[in-house]
């Protein structure tokens, strides 16, 4: 079933996002929440690293957190899917465990 990795920090502020990517196995899911959603933006210096991970992991961003930071769905890197809190709950049930990268 794999692991749901939650990441709540900006990849521009902390190394926790890079560490999350480095420890997510093929078939895992990565969910950006809180300040982590700024990592979802296309055209940033972090986008290539995130895009590369899409080859082996499904990647989501929490829509409410994107909206709070002024980001629209079209600002998000292609391949990154959006969920709301209900979708967040579903992701936790679909994977065997949740690993929070704080």
């Amino acid at each position, binding site marked *: 079933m794999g692991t749901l990795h939650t990441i709540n920090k900006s990849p521009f502020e902390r190394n926790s996002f890079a560490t999350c990517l480095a420890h997510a196995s093929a078939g895992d899911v990565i969910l950006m929440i809180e300040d982590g959603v700024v990592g979802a933006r296309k055209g940033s210096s972090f986008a290539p690293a995130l895009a590369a991970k899409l080859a082996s992991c499904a990647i989501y961003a929490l829509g409410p957190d994107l909206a709070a930071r002024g980001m629209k769905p079209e600002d998000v890197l292609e391949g990154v899917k959006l969920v709301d809190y209900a979708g967040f709950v579903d992701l936790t049930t679909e994977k065997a465990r949740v690993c*929070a990268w704080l």
Partner: protein
Amino acid sequence: MRFGIVVNEGPYTHQASDSAYRFAVAALEKGHEIFRVFFYHDGVNNGTRYTVPPQDDRNLQKLWSELAEKHGLDLVVCIAAAQRRGILDANEAKRQGKDGDNIAPGFRISGLGQLIEAGIQADRLVTFGD
């Protein structure tokens, strides 16, 4: 499914408590069970009834207390973390010789074993922090 939720930061300073609250509401709306919400580290600061946030902002302590009352949630504040940070219930206040307490309705103070138990009893443990 049965969830355990861990909240590691106090209200307002970090979004952790907000995110955990909205996750809890969404899980309950989907018919899931919440075995326990465990407040650790600065998370214990969610459990003081002394807060007075601005009137045009959310009141996280009240939101948690009301959710607990409505759904019979078990909101546990870690005793060791609470002692360091000044969160007391009436028993603790008496035991420590303090002249008052500040625990909010619906929260109870207990040991770290409650966190381990949540990990054992819940199907998924979801952590919110800094």
